[in-house]
């Protein structure tokens, strides 16, 4: 197990993670390390355990076995699943972010785009309305939304716009670690390309650490530094993204790579 210590410590480590749904395996024997500023992709077919793993890492789902450690901005190391609920909530609102596949799961649909963007700032203690509003406006522009629509509710936005709004809402207070589950799933190809480009830019500009779950190898090729390949709940192969995709060692990874039409 990697210890969160030393001159260049990781941000998150998980060891021996396992989760069973009744008798069915969600994930098992999974070790994960995430360093600051690094994008770790998790790929595999549907049902391979990607989302289960993500939810265990993000503290949203208690694993059956295993531990997740996180190094906070203050430098203390916490056992994510042993944290009292309010602390975990606070962590999720301040240092972490979660981008859901369906923007409706991440947005508050009943309030304006601006209120969505401002929420984390307010939760962090921002009190000055004008300042929150101006940061929200900056973020509208940053995620390539028309600033004139800041008072519209998300209902009025297209799927791609909602997804960009969700991303803005999560990144507005510069979290250190972001969990993304199929952030480009369910979008048209051209909308996906735009979103990917946006994510690429923001990840680099904000020096974000990201755990990115997707079944789309093209997405990880563009975004991920490292990859975990999952099958049947287990990690069958991991390593540098281009190495895993261009020189896959495991039969399952070879099958995944061979199943993609070359672009």
């Amino acid at each position: 197990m990697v210890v969160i210590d030393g001159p260049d410590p990781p941000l998150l480590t998980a060891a021996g993670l396992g989760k069973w749904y009744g008798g069915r395996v969600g994930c098992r024997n999974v070790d994960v390390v995430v360093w600051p500023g690094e994008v770790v992709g998790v790929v595999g077919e549907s049902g391979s355990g990607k989302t289960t793993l993500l939810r265990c890492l993000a503290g949203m789902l208690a694993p059956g076995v295993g531990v997740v450690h996180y190094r906070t901005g203050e430098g203390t190391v916490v056992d994510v699943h042993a944290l009292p609920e309010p602390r975990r909530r606070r962590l999720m609102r301040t240092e972490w972010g979660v981008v859901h596949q369906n923007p409706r799961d991440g947005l508050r649909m009943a309030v304006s785009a601006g209120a969505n963007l401002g929420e984390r700032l307010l939760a962090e203690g921002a009190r000055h309305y004008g300042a929150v509003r101006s940061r929200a406006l900056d973020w509208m522009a940053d995620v390539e939304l028309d600033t004139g629509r800041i008072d519209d509710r998300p209902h009025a936005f297209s799927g791609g716009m909602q997804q960009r709004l969700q991303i803005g809402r999560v990144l507005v207070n510069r979290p250190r670690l972001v969990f993304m589950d199929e952030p480009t799933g369910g979008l048209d190809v051209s909308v996906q390309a735009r979103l990917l480009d946006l994510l690429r830019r923001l990840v680099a500009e904000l020096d974000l650490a990201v755990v990115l779950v997707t079944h789309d190898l093209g997405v990880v090729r563009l975004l991920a530094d490292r990859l975990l390949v999952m099958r049947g709940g287990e990690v069958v192969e991991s390593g540098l993204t281009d190495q895993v995709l261009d020189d896959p060692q495991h039969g399952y990874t070879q099958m995944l790579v061979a199943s993609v039409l070359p672009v």
Partner: protein
Amino acid sequence: MTVNLEARGLSKSFVLHAQGGIRLPVLCDFGLTVAAGECVALRGPSGAGKSTVLRLLYGNYRADSGTLRVAHGDGMVDLATAPPRLILAVRRQSIGHVSQFLRAVPRVPAEEVVAEPVRRCGVPTAEALDRARRLMARLNLPERLWRLAPATFSGGEQQRVNLARGLVAGHRTLLLDEPTAALDATNRAVVVDLIREVRAAGTAVVGIFHDQSVRHAVADRVVALAPFAETQGSAGSAPALG
């Protein structure tokens, strides 16, 4: 003599699980040492493993055995055993690979594609773009293309974008996979000049140059690769003069 790259005992085979686990040996006990300012050309028939060698040297393919030491910072890093994060750092700062085809990112303009490796080293955007544009101009890429995404560019234009991207960061070791294959004579000559310039500045270059005149113009040494069946049991490859 400063050694920038030193490969020893490199072996590589591919195991194709979907095809009954068939094993495809490509390289056996391959060695290569390249000094700063030197250019080595890899030569051999199609399928001999030339691109495989470059990809191994870049850490893109995993070596079955052997060491692969690349100058980085004040020392050498063995890419065969380095963790992914270190490989990425070595690629950012010390070694560049120009693949045969550009992998275009949707929507990203050519000048940003070219500037990206410089920006990743921490150079401010404006300066990175400036360096990118100068190199693109040198490679005769018309200015009207700079703001466009390269996906729709011609083969030769894409290759020049790819080359500019590979050269722009000034890495001290450079791997070039057929950098002039899609270029006309004028642009070939530009590329020859550029390679000579980086060599003169101390860059170690390993390249595959199908064009014999290009090879003669840039390389000090030629290393011949033979298809695996012909080398099995022997040393794998022997340096030869070309």
